[in-house]
Structure formats: structure tokens, C-alpha cells
């Protein structure tokens, strides 16, 4: 008689397999690649790097690189934009121990990816040699805890797009301050037009306004995170939009770039949009909008702050499971900081504002027919990119923080204020930090 019967063996085998599966299912993202030894770059053999991004036609741009680098071929894979599905896809790929070499990650989301050990610290692969090519402010936003966790790909300096005809009808010019903006809004309301939307469901816009006013919600200290969301700058912005909503100066029924917004903007029921440089391509999609829109500097807050703010903007992150971090980094730097890469990304992908201050991209030096012949990129956005809040830094669980804020904003309809929402959000976000095991304290004034 054999020592072990077939059945016992089968049982044992199944049991071991199940145990193995169970142990492989430990909470994902709890192992760091940045403490492991660095991976040497390959010599001579042909490798393929995968880049997950939501930019359209990115492969056309990658093929320019591929032609010049036969040994480092780049394959692009389209993912849905950020929170619309791209990040969940990346997170689950990382949790399963896979994923691409490179991925498009927005500035604000870098810390969240760091929390799940999803990003390679590229300072260990010589990122410093490329640092000089990039806007200092943007480089600061990818540098955390002594490391570098992404190559800036594009940014979104903000300005105000407006329909000049509608402004002419009420005898207004582009507002230089937010107070003037409110006056123009009141005039436009008499002509059955809203000046703009205030998106209650997307806290990113409010956040950008607060950053413009000089807020700095988070900073990393030696003993942990320091939060300061209820500072005077933020509360000023909250009070301002509380008043604007109470007076029915802004549209809250839909958000910019939704089907309802396109319909309203086409009919002249929305007069302006204060948004990032990348909004130009979307505005160009408004039917019958050609020649009606112009661009002006963002209005300023009376208490000071900055001339512009950032909304959106993304980086190229080297992902934790990449086998070729150095080659991936080299491609990312070529893509985002050379004339060739930037021009191709503008032409084929409609990329946002260039992260390299020296190169805004050849197509952006021409006047635009859609925007009434205005050379708005050079005249408005190039200066706006330099008028930024240098103190701003992003934090972990940014998306959850934004959701908490917008959940609070949604309550505006039932009588609470944006000011209440901001103050309450600060408390809740502190709880989120503590729940994920991070230490956080309130900024002592």
C-alpha cells in the first residue's frame, strides 16, 4: 500500500493551493519597491515599455520615439481618464502584482499611489539630471519625502474664457477681480444668462480657486501631516461662492463639459468659463462657438493671492512593477520636455500646458481662429503658468478629500453653506488620515 493515497494527495494539493491563494490575497499594496535594490538598465537587448494613459492617439507620438530607439519600444494602452476608470484599473492591476511600466497620474493623486506603493522613486534612477528642464513649481509637486515620484507631463494654468458678444450686450469687459466678476454676473443674470457654473459635485474647481487665493491646505512636517483647510483664504473663497449661489449668479444644475453645459453654452446661457488651458479644446467643441469666445486673465482675489492657479495636469509615473524603470524614465523625459515630444503631444493628443517653461510647443505660438484671432496661449497662459501658488502641495487620499468636500457642497441646496462644508470636511479628512494609519494634526495658528 502506498504511503499516500491519490485522494490524500489530491486533498493535500488542493489545500496547499487554497492556502497559497489565501496568502497571496494579503491586503494589496503593502510592500514597497523603493526599499528593494535598483534594477540595472538593459544593454543591447530589445525591450518593450508599456504606458497606460488617457491621451488619445498617444501611440503616434510613441512611434516617433520608437523609430529612433529600436531597442526600447514603447507601447501605449488607452485607459479611461483618471477617476472615470483609469485609476481603479491601475490600482487593481497593482494590487494583482502587475500593471504597466508607465502610467498617467495626475499631480494630486501621486500621494495616493504612493500610499499603495504603486510608484517608483525615480530619484534612484537619475531623475535629477532632468529636473532642470521642468518648471520648478511642478517639480516640487512631484517631489515628496526626499524622493521624486513622477515626471510632469502637463499642467493646467487657469484663465477666464468668455463670450465677448454676451459681455458687449451688458456693456461689460473681462473682470479683473472676483468682485467685478460678481457685478458682471448680476448684469448677465438680467439678460437670462449665467456667468459660469459652480460645480457642487467637483471640488477640484473650488480647490483651484482656494489655491489661487493663497491657501495651502496640507504640508508635510517631520511628525506627520499638517492640515489647514479653514484658513482665511479658503473661507474667503467659500463665502464668495456662498453669496454667488444665494444670489443665483451661478449655475449649479450642471457642471462644465457635461452635455447640459455644451447645450447651454451654445445657446448663450453660459457666458464664461474660468478653467485650465486644456479647456480650450473642449470649448472649441461648442456648436456655433467659433469666433464668439475670447480668453482673459483669471480674476484676482481682493485680499491678494496669485494671478492664476492650476487645475488638473498630470505626470508620467514609473509604476512599481516595471522591469525597466530607467528606460521608462528616459522615455517619459523625452515625451514631456523635448521640442519633438511636446509638439507631437500637442498635435496628436491635445496635451495640456507644457511642463517645460522653455518650450510651450510650436502649435501654441499661433493665433487661434476659434478664439477670435487671439494669440491666447502666448498672451494669457504663458504668463499665467508663472503666476502660481508655490506653497501648494498635494496629500494622500486627495480623491476622498474631494469627495468629502463635494458631499458637503451638495448639502448647499438644503440650507448649509460652503463655509460649513469646508470646516466639516477638515474634520472628516483628519479622520480619514487617522483611519489609514497616518498621523495628522491641525495647523496651529
Amino acid at each position, binding site marked *: 500500500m502506498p504511503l499516500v493515497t491519490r485522494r490524500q494527495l489530491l486533498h493535500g494539493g488542493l489545500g496547499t493551493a487554497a492556502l497559497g491563494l489565501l496568502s497571496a490575497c494579503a491586503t494589496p499594496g*503593502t510592500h514597497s519597491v523603493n526599499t528593494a535594490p535598483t534594477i540595472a538598465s538593459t544593454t543591447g537587448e530589445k525591450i518593450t515599455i508599456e504606458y497606460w494613459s488617457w491621451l488619445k492617439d498617444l501611440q503616434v507620438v510613441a512611434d516617433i520615439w520608437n523609430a529612433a530607439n529600436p531597442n526600447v519600444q514603447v507601447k501605449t494602452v488607452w485607459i479611461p481618464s483618471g477617476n472615470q476608470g483609469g485609476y481603479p484599473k491601475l490600482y487593481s492591476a497593482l494590487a494583482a502584482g502587475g500593471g504597466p511600466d508607465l502610467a498617467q497620474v495626475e499631480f494630486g493623486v501621486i500621494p495616493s499611489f504612493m500610499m499603495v506603493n504603486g510608484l517608483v522613486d525615480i530619484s534612484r534612477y537619475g531623475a535629477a539630471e532632468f529636473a532642470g528642464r521642468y518648471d520648478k513649481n511642478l517639480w516640487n509637486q512631484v517631489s515628496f519625502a526626499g524622493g521624486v515620484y513622477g515626471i510632469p507631463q502637463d499642467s493646467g494654468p487657469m484663465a477666464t474664457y468668455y463670450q465677448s458678444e454676451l459681455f458687449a450686450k451688458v456693456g461689460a469687459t473681462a473682470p479683473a477681480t472676483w468682485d467685478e466678476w460678481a457685478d458682471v454676473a448680476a448684469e448677465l443674470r438680467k439678460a437670462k444668462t449665467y456667468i459660469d457654473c459652480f460645480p457642487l459635485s467637483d471640488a477640484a474647481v473650488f480647490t483651484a480657486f482656494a489655491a489661487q487665493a493663497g491657501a495651502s491646505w496640507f504640508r508635510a512636517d517631520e511628525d506627520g501631516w499638517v492640515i489647514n483647510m479653514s484658513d482665511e483664504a479658503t473661507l474667503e473663497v467659500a463665502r464668495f461662492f456662498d453669496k454667488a449661489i444665494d444670489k443665483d449668479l451661478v449655475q449649479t444644475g*450642471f457642471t462644465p463639459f457635461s452635455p447640459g453645459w455644451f*447645450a447651454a453654452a451654445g445657446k448663450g446661457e453660459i457666458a464664461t468659463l474660468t478653467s485650465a488651458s486644456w479647456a480650450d479644446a473642449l470649448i472649441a467643441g461648442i456648436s456655433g462657438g467659433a469666433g464668439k469666445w475670447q480668453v482673459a486673465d483669471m480674476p484676482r482675489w481682493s485680499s491678494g493671492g496669485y494671478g492664476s492657479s492650476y487645475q488638473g495636469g498630470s505626470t508620467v509615473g514609473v509604476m512599481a512593477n516595471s522591469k525597466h524603470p530607467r528606460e521608462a524614465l528616459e522615455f517619459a523625459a523625452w515625451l514631456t520636455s523635448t521640442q519633438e515630444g511636446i509638439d507631437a503631444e500637442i498635435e496628436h493628443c491635445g496635451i495640456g500646458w507644457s511642463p517645460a517653461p522653455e518650450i510651450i510647443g510650436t502649435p501654441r505660438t499661433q493665433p487661434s481662429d476659434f478664439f477670435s484671432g487671439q494669440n491666447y496661449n502666448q498672451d494669457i497662459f504663458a504668463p499665467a503658468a508663472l503666476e502660481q501658488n508655490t506653497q501648494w502641495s498635494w496629500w494622500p487620499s486627495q480623491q476622498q478629500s474631494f469627495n468629502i468636500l463635494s458631499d458637503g457642497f451638495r448639502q448647499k441646496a438644503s440650507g448649509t453653506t460652503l463655509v460649513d462644508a469646508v470646516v466639516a470636511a477638515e474634520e472628516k479628512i483628519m479622520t480619514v488620515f487617522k*483611519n489609514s494609519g*497616518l498621523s495628522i494634526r491641525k495647523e496651529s495658528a
Partner: protein
Amino acid sequence: MSITTPQRESRPAADRRGGTRRVSAVTRAPWLLLAPFLALFLLTFILPIIVAVISSFTKVTRGGLFGETGVTSKFAGFSNYAQALADGNFVASMGRMLLFGVVQVPVMIVLATILALLLEAASARWPGFFRAAFFLPYGVPGVIATILWSFLYVPGLSPLIDIAGWFGLSPDFLGPSAVLWSIANIVTWSYTGYNMLIIIAQLKAIPTEVYEAAKVDGASPVRVAWTIQLPLIRPALVLTTIFSIIGTLQLFAEPQVLQTVSPAIDSQYTPNLSAYTTAFAYNDYNVAAAQAVLIAVVAFTLSFAFLAFSNRKSS
């Protein structure tokens, strides 16, 4: 089977060895045949549930600013459950789905029953055509159905809102108070035909003699429906109701898609959306697992409560 078994038992015990081998072969055969199913069932159903339950009792703590100085997992007791239940939005999403279910499920089942009875009535015209027509929406995936309906909900695009405008009305299908019922409308549109089909199948199983007897007694069509058809399709009604209760708690695609046009839908609008957001947007797999277990427990409880209720009523 009932014939062969006594034969085997009455077999003389001479060839005992052969007998036991034969018996064990017989007992083994169904397991062998079931093995492919069981393996997949264990791997894709039981194991994930076990992992989810284990995960829901685990907690991750991080050192440093991002966890760069060390990450530890440990047993957490019920703290993830406490956190899930302390999350006002998650509890609110449960409440929202209960309200949704209390209104939408009866409306849909009643509608499905009426349609089924009408189509199975003797005087029905082109029942085959209408049956297919009513069932057709079920063939449209939920995501597509929601996109289709959203064109009827969005102001500026919707002909419905334009028509209402002629009468001086301005309905807001996507506002905070109305959007839940806009979703209910999509769900009802999608699934009424499906439930109707299950009920029709049961109606077709009613023997014709019963109808003939009713006819002889001079029962009106309404009387036939009320005293013959409705009591006899009870099992189908119970089944469709339970499916609908579970379906309600699992609502995901419709609010997820409608989110892009309705600012009123937040990222935790339904329990499933809440678990999805917690897992894949907040990366808190442990709390998401706790939420998933809670959703399952509520779905079980409600289904069994409804079963117990309908059984008691019948006895």
C-alpha cells in the same frame, strides 16, 4: 435508482471486496463529474468570499508620511465594520436603496403581472409580438439604457423637458430629490419585461382544465385572474420579488453612468458604488470588504424575511 439499489444490497456477500469497490466507484462518480464545477465554484465563489471576510477583519497601519517607513497588517476585530457603519454616506446609501426598493419593486412586479395577465388573456391580440416588445429593453445593457434615458433627462437636450416647457413646467429629472426616481424609471423600464416573462412561464403551466371549469361556472376574465391565475403564479411572484430585492441592493451601473450628468449623485450613492469607491478610489480594501459583507448580510436578511413573510401568509 430505486430499483437497482435493493438489488445491490441483496447481493451475496461472497465477493465483498469487489462489492465495496463497486460501491465506492458509485459514490465517487458523481463527485468526479461534479469536480470541474466544484473546482470553479470553490475558486471563483467560495474562496473570494473567504478572502473578503478575512480582509474585512484586517487593518493596515502606515508609518511616515506615505507609509514609506513601514506598513503593517494586523487583525482588527470589527473595527472595519464599525468604520463602515459610522460612514454616514454608506448608511445613507443603504437607506436610499431601501426606499428605492419599497417603491420600485412593487411597482415593477405589479406592472409585470398586469402585462403578463393581459398577454395571457384569451382576448389578447398578437401576444407573441408584444411579449417580444416588452422583453426587448432587457436586451439593452444597463449602461446603454442609462445613456439613452439620460438624453431624455438632460435639460437642453431632452424633448420631454422642451414639451413640458410649453405648458410652463420645468421638471428637473436630475435634481437631488428626483434623480432616484429617474433611476427607478430606468430600472423599471429594463426589468419589467424580464419579470413579465417569468410570470408568463408560470401562467402557461396552469392546466387548461382549471380555466374550463371556471368557464363552465361562468367566471369573468377579472374573476379568473383574481381567483385562479394570481394564486397559482405566487411562486413566480415570490421569485421575481426576491430577484428584484437583491438586484436593488446591487444597483451600480445606472447611477455610475448617470453621475456624469447629475451632480446630485455622489460617489457613494448606492451600497455597491460605495464599496467600489472605497476599494478602487480610496484603496481601502479592508473597509470595502466589510461594506461588501454588510451588503450581502442585508440582502440575505431581506430575502429571507420576505420568504418567511410570504410562507406565513400562505399557510
